[in-house]
């Protein structure tokens, strides 16, 4: 019976010219989004691979110079992308792509792509994720708003129920009837995307992200199921199909265009982040770098002389300036770490508040999960930045140690390191953590999406069971 209802609904939908037109448009948009997203991923990955090599060559080929000069010359780390970022750009346009690793200070990532975009970008980017999150629900509304209200208006509901159809079967049948046309649209799109991906970047990159992709598909399926259930509930309760449509479109508008804005406002109000100026000033109050250099050296001198029990600086085994440099670096690194951790913690608790907004709008749960799985969320950005910072410390500390190793020489600043020293520092490489880590950052979203699903699954049959016939 369920299958029969579903088949009837499906046939009706497929024959409906409105749905065919809307479906074709959404399909075309989805395919365009998939292909352009893929192209962007392939381009960026290629640039990335070249850039890593260039960075390394520049580093090794910098010639003989003082190790501290080399530390100031520094290294650039570039954020890699996961293959799934082709589907969901997430926060990437709003976060820097390159990170300058230099002596004395921890920098924030620079060059946010959005700075180089035109203002139309603010209307939202056409990505596969945006299409799935915004346009598919709209198709669901179109498919389902008249499911009960329409039959009631055409007086076919009474007839249908007089046949003795079990109401639970009716609910499930209607739901499947809405889902089937979507599959007709989504499966070919996914096939095209998958083939293009395999052709472009080799099957390897897909299989690597396969678990993430599987969870992502599950997340979107749950989201669509929630929307189908909601649409059926509204259609069953609404006195007219017109009202059902208006209510559903209103909810769509709130879910897709308003909720994110309000949730992010709430998140900001809950845990306000300091302004860039404030943040930098607070660090500048503590971190010294080369500032007050003479005092820094003097303190080290006194301490070392007491420790080694000598009265002349010349009798020390090391040059106090070298020690001051090394110690200063380690001290400042901790200060930066403290401030960056505080800031990143604020952003991550903002993310949790934002996710909590999914109580009102399921989109927020899907959006955050989707970008988490695509490796384009804030947690991923932070993880990369922290890995790069660890690398920076190794790099600078290794170079500083080389200066300390020169012993108590007055010529430490004239000492020059060469290629063999630069080679001591391994190239920077980064791998993103796995699926469980990615999901762990979005437990509120996952929990709330499941809650929505359970509630809708329980409530829909109940409402359908009480559907008014006239």
């Amino acid at each position, binding site marked *: 019976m369920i299958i029969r209802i579903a088949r009837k609904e499906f046939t009706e939908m497929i024959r409906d010219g409105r749905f065919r037109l809307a479906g074709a448009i959404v399909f075309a948009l989805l395919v365009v989004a998939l292909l352009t997203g893929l192209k962007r991923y392939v*381009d960026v990955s290629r640039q990335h691979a070249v850039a890593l090599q260039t960075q390394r060559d520049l580093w090794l080929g910098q010639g003989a110079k003082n190790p501290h000069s080399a530390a100031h010359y520094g290294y650039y780390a570039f954020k890699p992308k996961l293959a799934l970022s082709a589907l969901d750009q997430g926060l990437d346009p709003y976060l820097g792509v*390159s990170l300058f690793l230099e002596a004395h200070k921890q920098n924030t990532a620079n060059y946010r792509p959005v700075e180089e975009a035109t203002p139309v970008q603010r209307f939202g980017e056409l990505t596969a994720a945006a299409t799935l999150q915004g346009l598919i629900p709209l198709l669901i509304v179109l498919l389902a708003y008249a499911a009960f209200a329409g039959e009631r208006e055409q007086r076919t509901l009474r007839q249908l129920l007089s046949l003795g159809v079990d109401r639970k079967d009716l609910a499930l049948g209607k739901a499947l009837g809405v889902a089937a046309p979507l599959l007709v649209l989504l499966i070919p799109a996914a096939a095209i995307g998958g083939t293009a991906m395999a052709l472009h970047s080799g099957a390897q990159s897909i299989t690597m992200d396969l678990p993430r992709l599987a969870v992502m598909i599950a997340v979107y399926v749950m989201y669509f199921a929630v929307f189908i259930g909601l649409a059926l509930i509204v259609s069953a309760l609404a006195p007219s199909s*017109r009202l059902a449509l208006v209510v559903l479109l209103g909810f769509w508008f709130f879910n897709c265009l308003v909720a*994110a804005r309000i949730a992010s406002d709430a998140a900001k109000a809950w845990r306000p982040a300091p302004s860039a100026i404030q943040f930098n000033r607070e660090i500048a109050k503590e971190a010294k770098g080369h500032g007050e250099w003479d005092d820094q050296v003097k303190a080290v001198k006194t301490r070392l002389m007491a420790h080694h029990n000598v009265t002349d600086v010349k009798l020390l085994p090391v040059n106090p300036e070298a020690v001051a440099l090394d110690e200063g670096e380690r001290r400042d690194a901790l200060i930066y770490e403290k401030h960056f951790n505080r800031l990143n913690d604020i952003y991550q608790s903002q993310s949790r508040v934002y996710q909590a907004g999914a109580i009102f709008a399921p989109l927020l749960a899907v959006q955050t999960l989707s970008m988490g799985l695509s490796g384009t969320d804030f947690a991923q950005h932070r993880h990369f930045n922290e890995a790069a910072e660890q690398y920076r410390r190794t790099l600078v500390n290794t170079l500083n140690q080389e200066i300390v190793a020169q012993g108590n020489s007055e010529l430490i600043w004239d000492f020059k390191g060469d290629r063999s020293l630069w080679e001591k520092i391994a190239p920077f490489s980064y791998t993103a953590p796995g699926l469980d880590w990615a999901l762990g950052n979005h437990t509120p979203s996952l929990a709330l999406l499941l809650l929505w699903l359970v509630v809708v699954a329980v409530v829909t049959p109940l409402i359908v069971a009480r559907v008014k016939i006239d």
Partner: protein
Amino acid sequence: MLTRIIKHEWRNLTADRTAWVVLLLFALVIGYALFKGQAWARHQQSALAQMEQDEQERYGEIRKLIVEEERKATAEGKPLTYPAWGPRHPAYVGIWRGQRYAALPPAPLAPLAVGQSDIYPNHFKVSAGMKESFLIAQETESPFKLLAGQFDLAFVIIYFYPLLILALTFNLVSSEKEDGTLQMLLSNRLRLRNIVLGKVAARALIIFLSAIAFSFAGLTLSGAGLESDGAIPRLLLWVCAVTVYGAFWFALSVAINALGKSAATNALALAACYLAIVVVIPSLVNLGATTLYPVPSRIEFVNAMRAETQEANRRGSQLLGKYFEDHPELAKPEDTKSPFSKTGEDDFAMLSMAKDELVARQMKPLLERFDAQLSHQHQLVNRFRYLSPAILMQSLLYDITGAGVERYQHFLRQVDEYHQSWRRYFSPRIFEKRALVSDDMANLPQFQFAEEGVSAVIRRVSWPGLAIVSLTTLIGYAGLRGYRRFPVVG
């Protein structure tokens, strides 16, 4: 007759509870948006204050150090020589501790639109070094907020306001037809076109008046200071833009209603138009711009700059000779014979100025390629924005409020000039080895932003404004003509 229809409709609408609920919602949304916009403007203002404080503190400190050195020298009776480093060294101030802010004050109508101001940095710490060293943006807004978008009045006008209009008009005639009252009305020697016009006029009056009244009430209540130059003419432009955009959606609804379909079909058709205009076309235009004119990779840019810096470092003291050739005015007479004389060779500040200039010159072609692609993108968007009134409206509102690209570029040009004058101040001092004296600290070049004139804004907004007006007229006219063939029965 028309006024009677309007009056009647007005009474009908005001007696309806849903209209009041809709208006209340509208008031709440506008209030919230203005509250957020005002908070953002204040946030920008407080950043300015922090900058000023930071600068004053640093300058006070530097001055104190200079005065101390000067006093010490006088006390010891020694002449002050050019220092190797320290507060009196021009590079210490010009490149490091004394870098001065060039800040963009909040836009004239900042509380009405956040626009691009949450993306573009509103200040730079200008240095005598190369421009690329300070033109790097710091994050000014949390990335979540940037992704989600701002809930400002521009958002309400572009997204929410059309929905209200559509909600009030999608069953303009169809409801009368479905209730059977249309035939009755038309039996009274009334023309259908006039009925439609009257209904639209009554609704437009309500929407326009409330949009404007709520906005002004919100502005007054939030205590937004609009005393900056040109705020009043800009506000008038805003009101015009909002009215024209509203008129477009009314016209569209009239045209869809003229097809004589059921209310539900009207609602669906209008929802589809809304979606196309506000969501789909803009994202396609964006995609087109970024696909046709992709900005060269920043990663490559970074690497190219690194390579140039390395090259400049390698050339070392040789560079100074080249530099003096380019800047004979900076070479002292005794240096001209041997430009990279001993005086300059080990002076890192001179070297650094020369290196910066070389790197900047080498990077110029690449930077120009960036700018060219970006301006191609902008041109493409400017051409294709005529495809969607929502994009037109966005550019209108951003431009009118001053939250858009144009005012920002106006700012960037001034920053560029300021950077030049900052360099002009410090580079002779570095090359002539002239130390700073305490009084110099009060006389360093200062950045003063000159606001854009309203006439320039009017020139820019007139075309897109005219485009919406003519589109509205066209659709409205076609729609009204359509009522001649309106199926009153059946």
